[in-house]
């Protein structure tokens, strides 16, 4: 489709949807980055935690018919699973090389996949939520989009502020930088790490629910979480504020690629994340906001 054929309405909707999707990506990406900051490891099990949270929400929502219960239960499950992974996997592996953590969390990914199958099977369903559409000029905004905009951004900002401005945040950053040193100063390292993971679970759980509302509860949600990892790396694994931008870049790229590249490369939209990631990693190996490591011997 030629560029000139695209009118304002299409453009504005493309961008709007890209940004919305991007915000959801950045919520999940924030989950990755919080874990990275706490433990210097990527939690590759996140996609399955996201799925588990979504199915929990589906089950509780179907049983109780109340969305707030669903939301609460999903976040509880997400936080609990994150904390369990920290306790059972990340903590024993403290101080081991990244390959061990990558392998172990991939193992958890695999195991949780089984758990998700037991819990939710592979149902495709929608969360019972009354969604209204509001027309704002060229845009059509749904209730859940409003929730994403009004809910997710404060949450993201809150996490960043917590990290930057409070003494709790300073303690978490201290632990992230040097766990052993922090322990020597009497910081409750394990609790702080656990808190990092719990926070990651919370943000991830919220992202998972909003994603599930925006699309459907289905096994495909795990692919969103894998793509969110790309957003996380685009921002830089140790950056927190940057994930919002990383997510939005990714969301926009997906929309634009689907719109303009699809005729030449069908279905590139869902893979553009990785093309973008590869390109960015070549140009900026530690992401846009990540801090570069200095090699020492």
């Amino acid at each position: 489709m030629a560029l000139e054929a695209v009118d304002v309405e299409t453009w504005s909707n493309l961008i709007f949807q890209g940004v919305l999707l991007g915000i959801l990506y950045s919520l999940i990406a924030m989950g990755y980055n919080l874990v990275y900051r706490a433990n210097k490891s990527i939690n590759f099990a996140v996609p399955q935690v996201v799925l588990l949270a979504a199915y929990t929400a589906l089950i509780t929502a179907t049983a109780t018919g109340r969305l707030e219960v669903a939301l609460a239960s999903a976040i509880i499950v997400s936080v609990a699973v994150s904390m369990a992974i920290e306790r059972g996997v990340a903590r024993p592996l403290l101080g081991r090389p990244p390959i061990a953590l990558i392998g172990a969390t991939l193992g958890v990914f695999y195991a949780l996949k089984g758990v998700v199958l037991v819990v939710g099977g592979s149902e495709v369903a929608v969360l019972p939520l009354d969604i209204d559409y509001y027309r704002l000029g060229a845009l059509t905004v749904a209730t859940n989009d409003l929730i994403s905009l009004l809910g997710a951004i404060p949450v993201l900002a809150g996490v960043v502020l917590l990290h930057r401005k409070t003494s709790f945040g300073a303690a978490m950053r201290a632990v992230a930088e040097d766990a052993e040193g922090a322990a020597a100063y009497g910081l409750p390292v394990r609790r702080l790490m656990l808190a990092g993971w719990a926070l990651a679970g919370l943000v991830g759980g919220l992202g998972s629910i909003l994603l599930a509302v925006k699309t459907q509860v289905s096994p495909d949600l795990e692919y969103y979480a894998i793509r969110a990892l790309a957003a996380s790396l685009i921002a830089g694994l140790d950056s927190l504020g940057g994930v919002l931008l990383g997510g939005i870049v990714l969301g926009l790229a997906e929309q634009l690629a689907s719109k303009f590249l699809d005729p030449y490369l069908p279905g590139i939209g869902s893979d553009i994340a990785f093309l973008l990631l590869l390109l960015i990693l070549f140009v900026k190996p530690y992401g846009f906001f990540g801090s570069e490591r200095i090699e020492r011997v």
Partner: protein
Amino acid sequence: MPPMLTVSNAEIMYHPYILVIKNLSLAVEKGTITCILGPNGAGKSTTLKAISGVIKYERGKVTRGSISFEGEDITNREPDDIAKRGVIYVMEGRRIFKELTVKENIDAVAYTTGAGPDEVKAVLDYFPRLRERFSERAGNLSGGEQQMLAIALALLHKPKLLMLDEPSLGLAPKVVSQLYSTIVELHRNEGITILLAEQNARKALEISDYGYVMENGRIVTEGPADVLREDKDIREFYLGMGKARAGYKSVKWYRRKKRWV
């Protein structure tokens, strides 16, 4: 009155097999400065890490024997629990948080000690340099300033026993002197008991009341500091006095190896 800290017959292992310390016993009397001397790898740091519990972060633990502080058993406890009891460990190599500013460093530790602005002020009175560089990234501080920050962070806990691991390592002699006078000052003014691990035996013995000498994971000699200062072997091997001062250039192949003890 029993000593403030006793380590009795401790055996310390790193995961899973590496035995580092065997049958280590030492005691620190309240209100004294005690030092542990010995070369790298002798087990000084390991001992302090075991006392403070930090060893857990290196996959190590005390497998035998016990460590007790003020009559309570603290063997293999969590480091934050031990810190709460007033045992603070300042690690080797100035382990401050280099990415954080001085203020944030203090905030981070204050998060767990609950130290208020008054306490922070009291601590900073000892280290006026830090106040000048309050919003500087800690990584940009000089070595001496970093060491001071490290000790300041420990002081936020109002420690009863302060364990310093090689505070002089890599510092210019001038700075080392300043540092040691600060340590003595703290000891006098705040009544903090100090356990010092040092390679720099001359400096350490100057300020200590009692000393232990470790090698290869055991204590090979111990005694009051003034006795140790006069000991022939210590003078030769640690204080660089005596005949060994003849220098390294005379080192020859045929020189027989002599081991401690």
